[in-house]
């Protein structure tokens, strides 16, 4: 297959997945529809991390912090007995996540390599403690979002998030929007610089790029998009807990990115489906599903560089190779 056919096949595949997702509620029960919605939200989360890991070369092990901060922003901004206004609470949540990412970025981006990994983890842990320990976060048990945000603007209500189906399609819309947004950004001069930084940061500097500022912008943007996911998660489940910020959450989303194949937005979406799919499958089989999950992760690292999205190409290679030998 030549590159153009390949990208055409990939495009068709993406459209097929989108069609499947759009049609899903017609066939799936309410529970599975909600589950798919959850996976789609996690896919947004994974894409936001992919911007850092896959495109800029920044391996963050603390990305759950921004997801959680946005989720908490929803919970804290929602009054006890009334819904909050969507058009206030959504920007607020995203802004909170972006600001946190900006200030943490100022610190963590001073480091590189292993340091960066450890320091992002440590700062996320710090954010975890802020919500777990201080009165601000409402304590270790978590807090309710008693009412889903109200989408009314100037007396007109375009959609109602309390309707599961409408909420589902809002999530689908958000996924498509984030996907399109990131695709555009990655083609833009800014996105090209990020990919250049991943390839050879030192060279980018000697070409005159202030790479720190680009990385900070990418870190903030990724935090904001993780915030979009965190916002949707809080709206979807109506409950936030410090566990949203835990480093296991960060590890899981990183796993989604890798499982799907990093540096590939579609891969991040695929990875989210695969990760949750495996989790559900394994936990149906055995209560020791974490053992299987761990095994899959280890095997994926050792035997599957490039992740799931690289599989078709690799299988093709094997098939072609065998034909060549025969």
């Amino acid at each position: 297959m030549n590159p153009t056919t390949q990208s055409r096949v990939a495009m068709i595949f993406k459209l097929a997945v989108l069609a499947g997702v759009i049609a899903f509620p017609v066939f799936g029960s309410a529970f599975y529809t909600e589950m798919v919605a959850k996976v789609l939200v996690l896919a947004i989360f994974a894409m936001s991390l992919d911007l850092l890991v896959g495109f800029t070369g920044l391996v963050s092990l603390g990305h759950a912090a921004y997801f959680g901060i946005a989720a908490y922003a929803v919970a804290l901004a929602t009054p006890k007995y009334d819904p909050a206004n969507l058009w206030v609470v959504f920007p607020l949540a995203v802004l909170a996540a972006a600001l946190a990412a900006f200030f943490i970025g100022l610190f963590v981006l001073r480091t590189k390599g292993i340091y960066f990994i450890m320091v992002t983890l440590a700062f996320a842990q710090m954010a975890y403690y802020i919500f777990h320990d201080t009165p601000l976060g409402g304590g270790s048990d978590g807090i309710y979002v008693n009412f889903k945000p109200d989408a009314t603007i100037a007396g007109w209500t375009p959609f109602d998030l309390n309707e599961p189906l409408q909420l589902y399609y809002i999530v689908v819309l958000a996924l498509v929007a984030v996907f399109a947004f990131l695709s555009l950004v990655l083609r833009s001069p800014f996105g090209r610089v990020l990919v250049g930084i991943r390839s050879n940061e030192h060279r980018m500097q000697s070409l005159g790029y202030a790479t720190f500022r680009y990385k900070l912008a990418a870190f903030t943007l990724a935090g904001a998009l993780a915030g979009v996911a965190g916002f949707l998660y809080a709206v979807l489940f109506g409950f936030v807990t410090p566990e949203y910020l835990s480093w296991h959450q960060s590890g899981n989303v990183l796993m989604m990115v890798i499982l799907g194949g990093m540096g590939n937005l579609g891969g991040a979406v695929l990875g989210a489906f695969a990760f949750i799919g495996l989790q559900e499958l394994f936990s149906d089989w055995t209560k020791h599903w974490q053992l299987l999950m761990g095994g899959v992760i280890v095997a994926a690292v050792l035997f599957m560089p490039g992740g799931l999205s690289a599989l078709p190409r690799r299988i093709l290679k094997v098939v072609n190779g065998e034909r060549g030998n025969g």
Partner: protein
Amino acid sequence: MDFTTFLIQILNALQYGLLLFLVASGLTLVFGIMGIINLAHGSFYMIGAYLAFALTSMTGNLMLSIALGIPLAFAFGALLEWLLFAHLYKRDHLEQVLLTYGLILIFEELRSITMGDDVHGVDIPAMFSASIPLSDTLSYPVYRILISVVCLALAGGLWWLMQRTRLGMMIRAGSHDRDMVQSLGIDINLLYRTVFALGVALAALAGMLAAPISSVYPGMGGSVLIISFVIVVIGGIGSVWGALLAALLIGFADTFGKVLVPDLAGLVVYLVMAAVLLWRPEGIFRKG
């Protein structure tokens, strides 16, 4: 805080810091020398503690268990290196993060299957079970002092190993230039296997020593891991002295944070780390 209490708190800080050093030293060694980021380090600590529990219930003697446990942990480390980590040297950090993250899940689950989820205690050996009175109400357990002494001895031992032995020389050379060492005719694979096994043994030893005072329970590795990361970041990757200094710094920050600013106790350690990052992004003792 009266003066006696202040002095006792200093003692607490020192003792906690030294124990942290013991846990973090293996991590910084593996980081610095092999360039491997190992999230499963906390699991090795946990494995050590459970090993102490299992062996002590068989032999009835903690000291004997530790003597048996160290070679076991060392062999386990060597086996892991051969099976998994040896394939990671040429891979990037991301893959190391993931592989070791997978290992955490595996180890924790295997622990649950083989040892159950209960809390277990390990007895302090009779000869160290006494306490020394410090004030009219408070006394200090001898075993804690023993741990501090062991940690200090290990710090010295590590320094001696790195600076004064042929193995240490090879390790130091290997950390700077893998190819150069290889060209000198040193078996780099064996060298790395040794270093990794040493790192595992150090973590397991920390777990074994801490088992009597911390008890043995599920998830005990997780909290140790993150604090070890903070220490390595502050101290500078690969620096044994840096780790010692950073561990003591964290010991003091944590102890006095708990006493002086109890509402922020959970954050103090991270604030210290942030401050050090502003001052020296590559740790206090960065390695050339």
